[in-house]
């Protein structure tokens, strides 16, 4: 369980990115963070594993106060928190396998990681994860040889290789096409369900967020302005988060997609067919 209390972040430039954000992520819950650019979504997610140092408030993972950890305890705790990035953030010149194995860096001594001699269990887990996310045959390719969707699958595998208790996901689909975006979101949902993993996902595609998360937290100018079910995102709420806009258009598109959603079995089949063709090509 993740608990955020009155989280504040003021950058050295004086910009106040977060102004007292509080919410709780329950076990197994997938929370979508939405909000306009600059609302503090990325800052919030990076404050949780302290890639960005918060300037106020507290964050708890179960009963451990993340905001009070010293250098080495922080490093050890980061192992329990997997992170998935917007532009994948794979190390491009390393192989796919090295990228996945880098999820174990917090657990193995330097010489083992330097010589790439990971414990057999770690390697076995990495293979299993590559198989799970569907890029097993790419294991020895360099990460920059993969397509966007494949790279993000590797990103997911790297995060899961850590055996995380929480996933932080920053705009996972921002650089992917709509179809691949849905596949990745579906994959994230499935792996979270398999492990009862809670996740915090930054998204700017409202429809995609609505379709794939359990709960939505809306941020605006560093403050939580909405916290509720995805289907409670009414035009009024969207106006509160993003400002004035003709939200009815979005709403009707959403209804249309909901109708199409009934044939989601077909969509799965279509995805599989697409991937089969992609692998042949």
């Amino acid at each position: 369980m993740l608990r955020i209390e009155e989280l504040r972040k003021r950058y050295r430039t004086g910009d106040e990115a977060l102004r007292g954000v509080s919410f709780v992520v329950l076990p197994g819950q997938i929370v979508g963070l939405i909000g306009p650019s600059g609302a503090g979504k990325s800052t919030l997610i990076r404050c949780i594993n302290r890639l960005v140092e918060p300037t106020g408030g507290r964050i708890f993972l179960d009963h451990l106060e993340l905001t009070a950890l010293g250098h080495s305890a922080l490093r050890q705790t980061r192992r329990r928190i997997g992170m998935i990035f917007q532009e994948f953030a794979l190390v491009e010149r390393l192989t796919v396998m090295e990228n996945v194995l880098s999820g174990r860096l917090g657990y193995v001594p330097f010489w083992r990681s330097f010589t790439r001699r990971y414990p057999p269990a770690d390697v076995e887990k990495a293979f299993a994860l590559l198989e799970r996310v569907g890029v097993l045959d790419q294991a020895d390719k360099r990460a920059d040889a993969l397509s966007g969707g494949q790279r993000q699958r590797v990103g997911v595998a790297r995060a899961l290789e850590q055996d995380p208790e929480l996933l932080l996901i920053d705009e996972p689909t921002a650089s992917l096409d709509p179809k691949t975006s849905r596949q990745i979101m579906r994959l994230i949902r499935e792996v979270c369900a398999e492990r009862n993993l809670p996740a915090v996902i930054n998204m700017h595609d409202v429809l995609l967020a609505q379709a794939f998360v359990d709960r939505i937290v809306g941020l605006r100018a560093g403050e939580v302005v909405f916290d509720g079910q995805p289907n409670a995102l009414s035009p009024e709420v969207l106006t509160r988060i993003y400002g004035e806009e003709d939200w009815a258009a979005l709403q009707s598109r959403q209804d249309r997609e909901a109708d199409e959603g009934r044939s989601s079995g077909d969509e799965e089949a279509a995805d599989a067919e697409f991937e089969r063709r992609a692998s042949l090509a």
Partner: protein
Amino acid sequence: MRNSNAAPVSPESPAKLIAAARTWRRPPWVCSRAMRWTFGAGALIYLTLALASLDINWPRVYRGLARGWQFIQGFLIPDFATRGNDILAGMQESLTMTVTATVVGILIAVPVGIGAARNLAGPPVYFFCRGLIALSRSLQEIIVAIFFVAMFGFGAFAGFLTLSFATIGFLSKLLAEDIEAVDETQAEAIRATGARWWQVVNYAIQPQVMPRLIGLSCYRFDINFRESAVIGIVGAGGIGGTLNTAIERYEYDSAGAILILIITIVMGAEYFSGYVRKWVK
């Protein structure tokens, strides 16, 4: 060809006419016209005066042409045989100096370069390493060579130390700059797994800077070889000593042979480094 099917754009469209009537010029660097002219004229006057101050002795130049022609003739008919043993020994010494100095230089330059990268090192280490680089770069090879010759006597050891010292300044500076320019998100992703500092360097930084480091090392190798010919003149061993002796004795054919060998080796190194760079990309 493809455009032939497209509808021709009417040149008489009103928007086009208005657009054609407007003019645009790139905003000048220096806003005030008077200032622009002052700067321009000032630079021109300085250049004229500076050129005029060069004291050129034309009769001497004319007499020197004959000597220059002799030099070129020697170059055209190089004599490898007469001083063959000296040339061979000098080349051998130069190559030994170059190889050892380049290797030792790289071994020291890598840690210094890492320490001189602001995104990896703390302020004390940073300033120490930057100081070392500044020291190495501010001293010209000849001056360093004279110093080491005075300290350790004539011979290849002084040359080896000189070239190592120069290599450290050159490589660490460029490596540090390359490290500072890496894609931070890759490092962030590795840091987020709970990796230690050394693991971040090994997994996120090294793959990103390796191709350039290898390219620069090859480049430094041929700089070192060329320098070995120069520092030999002040007694730091290598082919430079042989070359100096040949020129002093007016044996331009032997000097030509030496220069041709130097050019060949530098070109060979250049070709090789181009090949290596393509291979490590």
